[in-house]
């Protein structure tokens, strides 16, 4: 049984067909990459899977449960988490607080308990902070714990998004261009993080332009072009697929 299955998925904005009749499946415990030229519909696909967009047609299954049209926070509860290509950092909060928002689902959110600051809230927050600091250490942000998010550089914020997404302890993690704008060393670090995350049992879906990263860590690759599936398979298969070479890799 696949963890995520997409069937006949389509969405159009006005007259623009952003995703057309897409089918694919993702097995648990793998690193799965989605590649394709700009405008191929990769981020749109993420937005569909995480409930930000409602598909015009088709279905999305998580563990065989239809999830298309569900609200994002319900999907988060079902184990979905993601990062954003254009950073969505809470600039009004500190770095660790950003990560702690990611921990939301695992905390006591009873308003009355929070208003009175009951001991269980204090304990919960202390444990959450500890856990979030571990995650920040993991993505290499150990020195920025209490920094204002607004003062941190781009590369650090990219990693902060990953830590925030991990704080939810997702089963399926969608990373939208985690290496974009990072230098080679930082890309290597992110690479290590992704592999480590996958090894811990989280299924990772990656949208990425960095072919070295994609080819190096992916178990499976899906190639999109103009909202349609162009090819899929192992990195080896995709690399040798003439259609992919012609449409995409040939230009790299």
């Amino acid at each position, binding site marked *: 049984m696949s963890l995520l299955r997409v069937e006949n998925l389509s969405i159009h*904005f006005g007259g623009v067909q952003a995703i057309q009749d897409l089918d694919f499946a993702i097995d648990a415990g793998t690193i799965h990459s989605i590649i394709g030229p700009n405008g191929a519909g990769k*981020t749109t696909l993420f*937005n569909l899977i995480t409930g*930000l*967009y409602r598909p015009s047609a088709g279905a999305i299954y998580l563990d065989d449960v239809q999830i298309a049209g569900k609200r994002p926070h319900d999907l988060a509860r079902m184990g979905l988490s993601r990062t*954003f290509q*254009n950073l*969505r950092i809470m600039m009004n909060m500190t770095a660790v607080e950003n990560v702690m928002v990611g921990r939301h689902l695992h905390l006591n959110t009873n308003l009355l308990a929070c208003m009175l600051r009951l001991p269980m809230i204090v304990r919960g927050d202390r444990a959450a902070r500890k856990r979030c600091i571990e995650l920040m250490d993991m993505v290499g942000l150990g020195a920025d714990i209490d920094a204002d998010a607004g003062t941190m550089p781009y590369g650090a914020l990219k990693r902060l998004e990953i830590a925030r997404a991990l704080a939810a302890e997702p089963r399926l993690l969608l990373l939208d261009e985690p290496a974009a704008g990072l230098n080679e060393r930082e890309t290597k670090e992110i690479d290590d993080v992704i592999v480590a995350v996958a090894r811990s049992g989280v299924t990772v879906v990656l949208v990425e332009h960095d072919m070295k990263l994609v080819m190096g860590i992916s178990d499976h690759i899906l190639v999109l072009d103009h909202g349609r599936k162009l090819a899929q398979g192992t990195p080896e298969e995709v690399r040798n697929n003439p259609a992919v070479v012609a449409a995409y890799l040939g230009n790299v």
Partner: protein
Amino acid sequence: MPPAFVELLQFLLSGVTSGAIYALVALGFALIYNASHVINFAQGEFVMLGGMVTWVLLSQGIDLPLAVLGAVGLTMLVGLLLEKLAIEPVRNANVVTLIIITIGAAIFLRGLTSVTLGKDLHALPAFSGNEPLDLMGATIMPQSLWILGTTALIVLLLHVFFNYTLLGKAILATSHNRLAARLMGINVNFVLLLSFGLSALLGAIAGILIAPITATHFEVGIMLGLKGFAAAILGGLGSGLGAIVGGLLLGIIESLGAGYISSDYKDAMAFVVILGVLFLMPSGLFGKRGTERV
């Protein structure tokens, strides 16, 4: 004519009359909003200034056309100063801060008017007398015709201005994309200034037109401003057509509501309607319904 029809016609006529005023005020909101994304809560004070200054000039023995010209000119000057001194320095501040600045300006202008011109109620003489005209059994005041005619003329002029002149197109371009407009060589600050001047002009004219019917007073701008804002929102913020339709609709609904339901709640009608519309259409009647890009 059956009396029920005459009654309806009467309500519609008075509704369209006040609706035209709301439309002018709403156009002022839309103009400034488009150029700067600021909601100018001092828009109602422009209306008040138009009426009050005209009254003062008339009382000094100045002829009506000259008094009107003077009042419009002075109000525009106030609009330009407001932009230059209070809006331009903080253009990128957040929405709430900007709202409070314009409200501060409104309070200041009200205070200034009450100190210099007093707190009394003044009625302007109607432009063409008070002889009611008969329209299929209903009556209409000549002043209403002045209001409708002037509003129509202004709408026409604005249409020509925005669609057929370079300056008008520059303002539209700025409202769509400020950065792109700047790159195209448009002086964005000048556009901003111009939008405040134009809004003040519209407000002053509205205030002068309505003053013979409802009389003018230093606090007359509060309700007119709020209703103009409601009309602008009703039509969809930033849409010129929306502002006009929103204003007329609001005037008609208010008049029908006051006539058939309860005159006590005349002032509440506009806000009940706007709440109802916003619940069903969160972007107003003609507002852009954008999908947020993620």
